[in-house]
């Protein structure tokens, strides 16, 4: 096994293009997960059981099954009922939905930690449910959970290589292509590993900053 720097020189621009797709998928997945998680948590708190029960079941089901299989489901089953998603869209929807169920739990912890008096005060001020959420609950519930949310974004970033299984050409997809074509696995796989390691070590520093910045004051 010998490391070939000229080969590295040839392949890194291709991997870099893949890295851009990886970051795109992460950011889009993040937006979807943040919005989806909010919808799920509001649905789960609904007093109507016909709304809250299915939402809970959905969260449990998605959390209990592998992301890879969910991606296959979106990629192979939906076209049969006429919904043909491009690979990247299927991948982003899969990532976003999967992580929205985790993020819903994070929102829930933030909302549960908002004092009950705030709900009562909102009611006393005659605010509508939307106004209560928008102006009273969420502005207090969100800041303390920002580090936990960021943690899941990092976790999601590390799961993006799964998208290569539904033919998205993110960094792992490109690396697999290069490796299969040249029959050299050492350099592409190691570079991808190094990319993720560098990114998550950087993210760990950022997370520590967020934890200090949004620390709950006692």
């Amino acid at each position, binding site marked *: 096994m010998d490391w070939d720097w000229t080969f590295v020189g040839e392949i890194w621009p291709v991997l870099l293009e893949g890295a851009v797709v990886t970051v795109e998928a992460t950011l889009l997945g993040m937006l979807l997960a943040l919005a989806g998680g909010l919808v799920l948590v509001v649905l789960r708190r609904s007093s109507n059981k016909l709304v809250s029960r299915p939402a809970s079941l959905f969260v449990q089901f998605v959390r*209990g099954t592998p992301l890879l299989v969910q991606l296959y489901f979106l990629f192979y089953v939906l076209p049969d009922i006429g919904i043909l998603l491009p690979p990247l869209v299927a991948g982003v929807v899969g990532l976003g939905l999967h992580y929205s169920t985790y993020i819903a739990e994070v929102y829930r912890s933030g909302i549960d930690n908002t004092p009950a008096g705030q709900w009562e005060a909102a009611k006393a001020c005659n605010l509508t449910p939307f106004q209560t959420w928008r102006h009273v609950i969420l502005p207090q519930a969100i800041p303390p959970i920002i580090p936990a949310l960021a943690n899941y974004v990092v976790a999601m970033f590390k*799961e*993006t290589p799964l998208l290569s299984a539904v033919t998205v050409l993110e960094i792992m997809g490109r690396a697999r292509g290069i490796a299969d074509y040249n029959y050299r696995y050492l350099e592409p796989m190691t570079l991808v590993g190094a990319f993720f390691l560098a990114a998550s070590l950087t993210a760990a520093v950022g997370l520590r900053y967020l934890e200090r910045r949004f620390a709950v004051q006692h």
Partner: protein
Amino acid sequence: MINWLGYIQLILQGAGITAALTVVGCLIAFPVAFVAGLGRISRHAIVRAAATVYIEFFRGTSIFVQLFWVFFVLPLVGIALTPFVAGAAVLGLNVGAYAAEVVRGAVIGVPRAQREACIALNLSRFQALRHVILPQAFVVMLPTFGNNAIELLKATAVVSVISLSDMTFQAQLVRNQTGATAIPFFTILLIYFAFALVISICFRALEQRLVRGLDGVR
């Protein structure tokens, strides 16, 4: 007419592999988590450093990348593992790294007075850990261990890409042979979900058993 019975059997065979992989993976992850988690709070800087490198490495590089690396790159240095061994090892080491943080957090979380009492009673460090600290910390770890085990179950789907015939692999096989997509994928989603439920029920039962007799201690 498609012979569904045969295909269901194929998927059930895959379910057996998935279950075996989950169990073996957990058996690897469990001791690894304790060694690495306690290593991170060791008195010796070298042990701490080694444990930190292991944990950061396995948490920082995606499991998908690790699996490819072990399966395609290690044979180049003469370590050729069968897909099952490669899969179980990567799953165990990866989830072990996450669980190590759980061990560390739970051990640190044991109240300081307990340690001081151990010193006052002249217990050796090992005795203190074995009889005082771990029994209390273990109960705290259990629920998160349950989540880790479910994460491991979900991660087993990834081994299908290194041609190990687990449940996801078999579903793909059925899709290739029959062209049907909804039935194989929905079937395996349900089986994964059932497995996840079994794991969480087992851990909850175990927790209830272990908490027995701890009233008043915490």
